[in-house]
């Protein structure tokens, strides 16, 4: 199916009107992820092609594909030893930390992307996290950001795969992302960058909608929009279960 899609993209390119010297045409295997009760993560395939009007320019080309989840404001805390116990002490507020961030590339990022372009577009995980005024809060903000990345990487929420993008004939590319089960709802953005000698020459982006459906949706909405009713419902379920268990075992023991 994916191969057929690639062929279609390639065919479409041949007849497409000119826009820029190089352009990216891309597609996603799905742009909607439904979190149902049995949601256990999912895989998303990003594929596309580079559309060219002129012969390919010299230089080293690279393709980088990122997927970013809704950003959150988070506090990163560090434990210190006070008297005899370890307690949270220094804290750093990070203004913009993606709930999910994956970056796949056709080669080592340092080779295909310049530092300046990275900072401008926020492509690597480090640059995608925005943190300002850190030194006023803690001595070494970068250690806190490093810890944030380390923890989220361990949870599968931050991923970095420098060789996961396959490029064929300098034109067709594809890559896949694994979205973990502990996903947050919201609009996810997929961005594709075409680089030449570290400079970005073309980019494209598309959205992926991640949302809870069915019972998950109903319970989440109820809990936030009508907390009193939700609380009462929880209690009714608990009371019914407690009474039911008692009645059932009385019947069994009698």
């Amino acid at each position, binding site marked *: 199916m994916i191969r057929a899609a690639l062929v279609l993209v390639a065919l479409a390119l041949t007849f497409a009107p000119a826009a820029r010297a190089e352009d990216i045409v891309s597609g996603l295997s799905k742009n909607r992820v439904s979190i149902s009760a049995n949601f256990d993560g999912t895989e998303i395939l990003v594929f596309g092609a580079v559309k060219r009007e002129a012969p390919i320019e010299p230089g080293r080309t690279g393709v980088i594909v990122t997927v970013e989840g809704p950003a959150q404001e988070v506090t990163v805390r560090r434990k210190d030893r006070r008297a005899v116990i370890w307690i949270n002490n220094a804290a750093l507020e990070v203004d913009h930390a993606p709930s999910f961030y994956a970056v796949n590339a056709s080669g080592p990022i340092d080779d295909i992307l310049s530092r300046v372009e990275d900072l401008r577009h926020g492509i690597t995980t480090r640059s995608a996290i925005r943190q300002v005024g850190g030194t006023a809060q803690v001595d070494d903000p970068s250690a806190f950001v490093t810890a944030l990345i380390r923890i989220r990487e361990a949870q599968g929420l931050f991923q970095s795969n420098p060789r996961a993008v396959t490029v064929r004939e300098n034109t067709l590319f594809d890559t896949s992302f694994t979205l973990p089960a502990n996903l947050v709802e919201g609009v996810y953005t997929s961005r594709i960058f075409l680089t030449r000698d570290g400079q970005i020459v073309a980019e494209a982006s598309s959205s992926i909608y991640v949302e809870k459906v069915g019972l998950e949706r109903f319970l989440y909405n109820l809990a936030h929009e009508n907390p009193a009713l939700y609380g009462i419902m929880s*209690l009714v379920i608990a009371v019914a279960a407690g009474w039911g268990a008692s009645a059932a075992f009385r019947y069994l023991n009698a």
Partner: protein
Amino acid sequence: MQIYLPIAEVSVNVILLLGLGTLVGVLSGMFGVGGGFLMTPLLFFIGIPPAVAVATQANQIVAASLSGLLAHLRRRTVDFRMGTVLLIGGIGGSAVGVEIFATLREMGQVDLLVRLSYVVFLGIIGALMFVESLNAILRSRSGAAPARRRHTWVHALPGKVKFRTSGLYISVLPPIAIGFLVGMLAAIMGVGGGFVLVPAMIYLLGMPTKVVIGTSLFNIVFVAAFTTMMHAMTTYTVDVALAVLLLVGGVIGAQVGTQIGLKMKAEQLRIALAGLVLLVCGKLALDLLLRPDELYSIAPVIG
């Protein structure tokens, strides 16, 4: 088989949750405790956010305690007047506890508070129970009759009321204070508080053992229900899907545990429970004392 929990926003294994529920159910059936003090740390361990674990436990405790309470109601071993007095303190304590919980969550110290409460209370209760049951075993070996101590400083306070079912004539102040403490613990630690309430009723109030469990359950049902509502409305962290899964295992486990418990001697049961309590306490104390593997932690900014 995985299930995505709508409020906790994590995906966990259904079999694991059912297993945890059953395991804690067996222990709670054996020892006549709610098992919250075991379940909450276990939920932290499998990756449920602490706030969700604590609030959901309150909901689950309603079901577990109600099931036990109904059995005691049939046997008429509930002191309603004492239960109501405890409850007055309990509701107040729960409200204060939820406030403390919310404040410390913003300060990033809720984890410390919960752990410290566990270490302190489990340590004290576990040690007391251990010594008491060890003495009881030694006494039963030596064949001496257990001494009965019914009058303590508690009986000297003003505001005395007759508690007919318990056969007591004491001040309402100690039960209110005990209720308050237990309500606060219920909100902060995600426990029913039976492990504090039962010894307090026996040793501080001098209530007869046969009405203690039923009265404790009566109090816990209402305090846990109130705590559930408070958490549902202020922190939005009650996960009903998680509660139901824990319930299913817990209900079955409790019945199995009760059967095991009936085959064991009271002193043996108490010393085993004391050992278990001290074990959990020791584990949590070590977490506080030893250098953690990961010094950093992440929490969303609230508000």
